[in-house]
């Protein structure tokens, strides 16, 4: 497939040049020309007033028997002996995809003695649970988990595989996709089924959150995607549901696991749980100096919430990078997100816009954060926060 400008029809209006997100359309003489920066995204196709920009499809070699693949899978990530919420969120979405395809939904559980978690996944919507157990799976390792998941996929041939876009999910998914030679879409925030083809439409933010892209994986199976935590709601468990549990013996020799986990160093555990927090208080450059972050911590404590930070605050060294919320940090979706002294760059918004309620405090009434906030206070955070803490304490919080 290529996209090109039919130069005979080009009227040199120049409308297409700024429409290209990648700057791939340039003047060649007085006609528009698409150079090698083109990623074939198609953003230019609709803007040309004379339809001089055309997409030409080439025949693609199809090597996969798509009819042999069926079913939607969700990989369930664990933290210690419990499941991360994102797995349940994906079971909720997976259920919708599976129903729309009229296929089954399965959960994949890998670990040491984890069969006790299977019923939870059935309650969240799984029809079947694939269990791979063994001492070698006690902790996540790229090598053991890649082997287990890739083997499972080869054995049972699902059509769609969803993983949470967590640290380990983003470590595992590309490794498995690479082994299977299939397509993977990262960090999705929207999932759907294309009516005419039955393909999964993977939608994700790109370009620093400035644009959204919808991606298909037409000819390879399974169609794989990682999905950001907290974008979708966790389904209400239905403990009446029943499902099938399939134990699959896949063993990994110690010599095949090339990385060894020595220890886990906790960093401010109580206020760091951004992914699961119902309330997050975040601070930005407007906090002025690192000591002032104590107010953020205090408000978070009063509200029983977690502490976030903007990229600017992390870059200034005021907060550990693990607290960073945004396109290159964590994606959060609490019930209430309180942005203090954060201007609201699009990269920050990309990480918190699925919050239910956003409250912003900023002294600049024109700060972009207010455009994304349900409630905004125009004022100095150093004056507003102490009063807010005091008033909330008065209410017995």
């Amino acid at each position, binding site marked *: 497939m290529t996209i090109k400008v039919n130069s005979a029809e080009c009227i040199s209006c120049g409308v297409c040049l700024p429409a290209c997100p990648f700057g791939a359309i340039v003047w060649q003489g007085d006609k528009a020309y698409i150079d090698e920066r083109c990623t*074939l995204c198609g953003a230019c196709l609709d803007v040309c007033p004379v339809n001089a920009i055309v997409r030409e499809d080439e025949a693609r070699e199809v090597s996969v028997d798509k009819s042999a693949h069926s079913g939607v899978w969700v990989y369930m990530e664990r933290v210690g002996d419990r499941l991360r919420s994102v797995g349940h969120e994906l079971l909720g979405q997976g259920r919708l995809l599976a129903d729309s395809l009229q296929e089954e939904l399965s959960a994949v559980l890998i670990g040491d003695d984890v069969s006790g978690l299977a019923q939870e996944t059935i309650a969240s919507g799984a029809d079947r649970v694939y269990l791979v157990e063994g001492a070698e799976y006690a902790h996540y390792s790229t090598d053991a988990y890649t082997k287990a998941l890739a083997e499972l996929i080869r054995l049972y041939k699902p059509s769609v595989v969803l993983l949470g876009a967590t640290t380990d999910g983003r*470590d595992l998914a*590309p490794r498995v996709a690479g082994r299977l030679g*299939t397509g993977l879409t990262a*960090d999705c925030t929207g999932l759907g089924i294309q009516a005419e083809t039955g393909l999964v439409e993977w939608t994700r933010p790109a370009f620093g959150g400035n644009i959204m*892209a919808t991606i298909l994986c037409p000819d390879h199976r399974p169609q794989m995607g990682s999905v950001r935590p907290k974008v979708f709601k966790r389904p209400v468990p239905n403990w009446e549901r029943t499902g099938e549990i399939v134990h699959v013996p896949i063993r990994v020799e110690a010599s095949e696991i090339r990385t060894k986990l020595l220890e886990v160093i906790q*960093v401010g555990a109580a206020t760091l749980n951004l992914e699961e927090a119902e309330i997050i208080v975040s601070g930005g450059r407007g906090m002025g100096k690192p000591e002032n972050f104590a107010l953020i911590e205090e408000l978070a404590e009063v509200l029983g919430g977690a502490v976030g930070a903007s990229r600017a605050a992390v870059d200034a060294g005021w907060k550990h990078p693990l607290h960073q919320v945004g396109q*290159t940090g964590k994606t959060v979706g609490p019930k209430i997100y309180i942005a203090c002294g954060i201007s609201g760059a699009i990269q920050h*918004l990309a990480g918190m816009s699925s919050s239910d309620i956003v409250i912003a405090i900023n002294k600049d009434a024109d700060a972009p954060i207010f455009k*994304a906030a349900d409630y905004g206070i125009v004022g100095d955070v150093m004056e507003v926060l102490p009063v807010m803490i005091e008033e909330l304490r008065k209410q017995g919080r």
Partner: protein
Amino acid sequence: MEFVVCVKQVPNTTEVKIDPETNTLIRQGVPSIVNPFDKNAVEAALRLREQHGGKVTVISMGPPQAEEALRECLAMGADEAILVSDRAFAGADTLATSYTLATAIEKMGHFDLIICGKQAIDGDTAQVGPELAEHLDIPQATYASKIEIADGNVRIEREHEEGIEVLETRLPLLISVVKSINEPRLPTVKGTMKASRKAIVLWTVNDLAVDHARLGLKGSPTQVVRIFTPKQRTQGKLIQKDTARAAVLELLGNLADAKLV
């Protein structure tokens, strides 16, 4: 020790703005830069070279102008640079990109450690590193905030949701690094002059032992079918009062009315 650093030239997405009238990206005046996380990768390699000796080679797959990005890495202190560029690679997704880079790195011969930035700020996929490690059949450690090498053992601190994971592994290895690992050095005038005299090796499709069906768009399982601007949240109520207390009380009153607090 032989270090390979993968770099990508990207538009500085932090300077991209959306035209509110047409809802399209305004790219005019947006500079192309070395992906910021890749600079951390170059810096990490340079520091390891300072400790252990060896050579740092930077490699990039991209259009001819990606040469500028490689030259900047040379100016920082990298020893050699390879540009993998051909129209045959255009339209590559992460799988085709990682495959192409893998064949180029195999052509280089011996390597000990490949370092990548955790992700590129234009695509933000974080997939090329792990897929490259898979093609080369070497272990990986992603999101590293610290790397130490002693006697062929590599100790890595990895940023994780719950804190820092400490991993131990052996070379050869691929590591992706986060921003907090270091502060990338600025090119010196001397470094820039030296870099301007260095030749950047260009490899086209004819230089690589590749399966043509796995390159570029044809070799890419994923296809972008639509690009659109994200739905914006709608602006709610703006509270402007003479005192902080009046503003806070109004906010808390609103939240109580909405049964939020």
